């Protein structure tokens, strides 16, 4: 009897351990520091083009069913890029290619600011004071409406510790493009570095652009005029079709 019991228990444990796993949620923090210079997609190094670049490199095949304006196809790789073998580009597919929005936007960088290239939906990053990275301006493009203006404002209010349901004044301004301008300041005395957030939102056909400046109030306040100049200078280039 004990042998039977032991055998049944053993196989029952095996059976139950193999199925019905709960979907567990993990937490992690990813830190990515971008290089100074913008990167473009690596080319396949081959002996026929440049022997000094010969490397055991292949790049993931580009799927056939991507639309013509998909970032994967934006001047990335030669048609021969697909292939088998060790995929050194694993996970970098969306990072090395600029988002399509990059190509049709221009802006004037305020003096003293530092600009870094973005990736994916983030078109660019700006540092008004390069030695104080906590004051960061981001330019992000989202396709479609990307949520209502009120929803985004509520989210941003929450990010700097304001009541998401509170009201915020939104100005309608005109630069080279029309945009909505918003200033949020957290005026809590208890915080060591009260946070502020100013943002410009551009509704364009098929996408929404967010130019957002978030950081300690002292940095945000001292560069608000520069930010407005940057926001006003943002322009959509004319594309020849």
């Amino acid at each position, binding site marked *: *009897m*004990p*042998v039977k019991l*032991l055998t049944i228990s053993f196989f029952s444990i*095996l059976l139950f351990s*193999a199925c019905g796993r709960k*979907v*567990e*949620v*993990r*937490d*992690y*923090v*990813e*830190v*990515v*520091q*971008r*290089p100074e*210079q913008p*990167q*473009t997609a*690596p*080319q396949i*190094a081959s*002996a026929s083009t440049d*022997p000094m670049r010969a*490397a*055991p*490199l292949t790049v993931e095949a580009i*799927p056939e*069913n991507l*639309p013509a304006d*998909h*970032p*994967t196809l934006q001047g990335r790789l030669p048609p021969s890029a697909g292939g*088998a073998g*060790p995929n*050194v*580009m*694993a*996970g970098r*597919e*969306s990072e090395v290619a600029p988002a399509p929005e990059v190509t049709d936007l221009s802006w004037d960088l305020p003096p003293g600011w530092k600009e870094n290239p973005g990736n*994916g*939906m983030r078109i660019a*990053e700006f540092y008004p004071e390069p030695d104080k990275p906590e004051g*960061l301006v*981001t330019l*992000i493009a989202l*396709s479609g409406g*990307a*949520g*209502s203006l009120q*929803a*985004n404002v*509520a*989210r941003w209010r929450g*990010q700097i510790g304001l009541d*998401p349901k509170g009201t915020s004044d939104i100005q309608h301004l005109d630069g080279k493009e029309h945009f909505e301008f918003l200033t949020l300041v957290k005026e809590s005395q208890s915080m060591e570095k009260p946070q502020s957030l100013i943002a410009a939102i551009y509704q364009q056909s098929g996408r929404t652009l967010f130019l957002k400046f978030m950081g300690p109030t002292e940095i945000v306040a001292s560069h608000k005029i520069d930010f407005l100049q940057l926001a006003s200078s943002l322009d959509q280039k004319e594309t020849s079709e």
Partner: protein
Amino acid sequence: MKKFMVFASIRLTVFCLFWLTVLTFWGTVYQVEHGIYEAQDKFFDSFVLLGFGFLPLPGGMLVMTLLFVNLLFSFFVHYQAGWRMPGLMLIHIGLMMMLLGGFFTKVTGIEATVSLFEGEGRNAALSRTEWEISFADELHSVQAYQAVDFSDLRKRSKVEFRDSELKFKVLEVVQNGKGLRVNEVEKELDVIPKSSADFVAIEKLPKSKTPEDHMPAVRLAVEGATGVEEILLTPRDQRPLGIESEDGTVRFIMLRRKRYELPLFMELNDFSRTYYPGTETPEDYRSLITVHLSEDLQRDVIIKMNEPFRLNGWTFYQQSFAVTDNNSEMSVFAVTRNFGRLVPYWATGITSLGLAMHFLQMQWMQLARRRKKS
């Protein structure tokens, strides 16, 4: 007690060793056509394998578990009397250690990749074969994510993330597939899922020999979102999908390669390479990286071919590199974590010692018997 003797039986040992030989041979033949990963999965990582598609047979994991139990029982049943056979006991300990070490490595081991341009830094390695659904409320350079492993997803599984009203239910999960757009779908869809690449359906593709090439896809029902009933995620999306929940917050969700948080932040300062003169054979390529272990503790390390960098069970190998069209270089590191890396060495050492002791003991006993006879 006698009833437990079946687990200490030498017949069980012989059966296990015989069946492992069969599995090894069968798996070797199978992998020629199906690839090493599928062979490993089917023959060695399974408890039960379906032979010829219908016949249930013991898989490698079951046989090795039985062998471990068999060794354990043998150890206590056959050699309990006075430690007269220390060599045999050591052999059993060594073999059990080897099986346990293999299991430990399988459960805790990680194989991933980090690729860095010069001047770039990261604190996470990307899996080559595993995927995750990650969830974030923003997309900054320093970003907290919640994630679920793609391998945990089953049809009808429910996924909920902390601090979010959004609830997801898996409707369709495909290990290797591609997204289809409206004009590529023949049947009429009841619900058009939201996708950042405008995919509306998934086409299942056959498994590839190399799982690195697999592109998974998943379709999820969403509760608590504004204007969205279903979403479709693939690694081809290129950008995260923003979902607005009913409380007005927007969250971002994406299907991407699984991230492993490293115990360091590594920054590539310089990458250099040399070739044997007149050939395309690399003589040496190496990366100078700065390893940040904490806010005020950092050191420079050179990782080059055959000289990996090791830290706290993690090993970073110089694997490969790539060159962009503006001559920027990207260095690629293979990253592994194997806390049981030394176990096979210890196990082999102990087993060898046991064999030597047993051999000498047998010789000694034979000699003693001869002397007694004469």
